[in-house]
């Protein structure tokens, strides 16, 4: 969905959001909004800008919930950005979101366009809860590229992706694996209000449990619990 169509549906009472290139920020109904559009590549400057807005919200609007609307094709592929350590800028954004969460800002992510790799990692995957529109696209890599890199025939990947949520693109797979909590359909303002009313403990990451309960990710929960609970005598 285009951002111009999305915002009026999320904030029917109006909103005040300023656009600058592929970046935007502002508020609607007392909810802070930070986002990107047009499949933005997340480079150092964009990550820095988003982090700065998170810090500003923490300072100027304590407790105000934050809605992340990030449409991204992934990280910017750039020698200059890598030279100044792009990963440090993206990590900085992640730290800012985490500190905001611990200062009482509820953070909701909505994938309304595309969410790919590091662009997804540094935004909605760090939210208290991440949702998606049905037409959103979530992926690491498309199957033809994956086939080239892994040298596994495309037909085999296509056949396996019918039964496995583990590698093929698609919102449904990310829901099954617990990373996306659910779809927003119909009254989007209502969906937002419901999500804001929820509660998540910043120290509890329930995505593994959701993935297991939904049958999309069967090992993460058990393996992490075994490492957490291993007693040294038992370990050998």
């Amino acid at each position, binding site marked *: 969905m285009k951002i111009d169509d999305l915002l009026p549906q999320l904030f029917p009472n109006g909103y005040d959001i300023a656009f600058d290139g592929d970046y935007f920020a502002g508020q609607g109904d007392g909810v802070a909004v930070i986002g990107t559009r047009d499949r933005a590549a997340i480079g150092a400057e964009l990550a820095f800008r988003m982090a700065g807005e998170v810090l500003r919200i923490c300072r100027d609007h304590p407790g105000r919930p934050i809605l992340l609307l990030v449409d991204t094709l992934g990280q910017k*592929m750039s020698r200059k950005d*890598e030279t100044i350590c792009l990963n440090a800028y993206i990590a900085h954004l992640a730290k800012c979101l985490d500190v905001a969460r611990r200062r009482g800002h509820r953070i909701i992510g909505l994938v309304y366009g595309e969410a790919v790799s590091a662009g997804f990692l540094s935004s909605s995957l760090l939210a208290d809860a991440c949702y998606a529109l049905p037409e959103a696209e979530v992926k690491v890599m498309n199957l033809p590229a994956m086939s080239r890199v892994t040298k596994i025939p495309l037909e085999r990947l296509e056949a396996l992706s019918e039964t496995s949520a583990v590698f093929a693109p698609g919102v449904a797979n990310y829901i099954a694996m617990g990373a996306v909590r659910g779809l927003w359909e119909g009254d989007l303002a209502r969906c937002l209000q419901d999500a804001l009313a929820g509660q998540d403990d910043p120290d509890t990451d329930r995505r593994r449990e959701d993935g297991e309960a939904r049958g999309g990710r069967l090992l993460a929960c058990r393996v992490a619990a075994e490492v*957490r609970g291993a007693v040294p005598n038992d370990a050998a």
Partner: protein
Amino acid sequence: MSSWSEATARQRIAGLLDAGSFIEFLPPERRAVSPHLRELGQPAAFDDGVAVGRGTLDGQTVLIAAQEGAFMGGAVGEVHGAKITGLLERARTERPAAVLLLLESGGVRLHEANAGLIAVSEIMRAVLALRAAGVPVIVLNGGRYGVFGGMGITTCLCDTLIMSEEARLGLSGPEVIETTMGVEEFDAADRALVWRVTGGKNRTILGEATLVADSIDAFRAALVAAMQPKPLTLETLEAEHATLGNRLDRFGDMEDAVDIWAAMGIDNPQRLPLLDTDAFLQAVKGAGA
């Protein structure tokens, strides 16, 4: 002096920790293998490419994870990631002196891409929760494959990074950038360029890493001095924001790392790649990142 880069994950652990102190959780005998690799007809490993456990360092208890670069470039899959996340969560209750992450990873394992990406985000959340609890998380990066992708982001979430000159740290690997954007954007075959961008020296000059020589003893010595937590607060993040903003303004548009080093006032910056670790640290002392 045994080399870090030539050692396996378990040799690094054994060389770093007090002799005989390492106890592995979910060791290879427990067969924590990736079912997804098997399904794709790919070889699997009994530890899924990472060893996790507990030991002591100068008598202090630490939890430790070491990725094995020789297995799929240390890439993160569902089981691999869950072992690291479980270790970080264990540290919240066990409260060791530190958690040591001996990273060597190309990032997400494409054979199980969605599970790997989500696993990395769970590692990221677990690192942040642990930092909030005041337990320091320290990254040691000295492997041949470097640290890229989501593990490159994770590295910069931790309290401290100790890195050798030969190691690399970045987000997209040079080959990926070259394939996607063209050789004029990044010539991945130009090894000197790759190291000027991603190598330990550039990361140290920028203030992201503490540089050590490629030996397990050197990593250990740097580690002992680095085991204090660095709290993440609004104030410390505002300071970090100012530093990163300054770096972006001053150096964000520069063509080459050497131009950045020159702008910092380092004499003869083009000689830096040739210096050994001690001479390098002497040469950059006082340079303004």
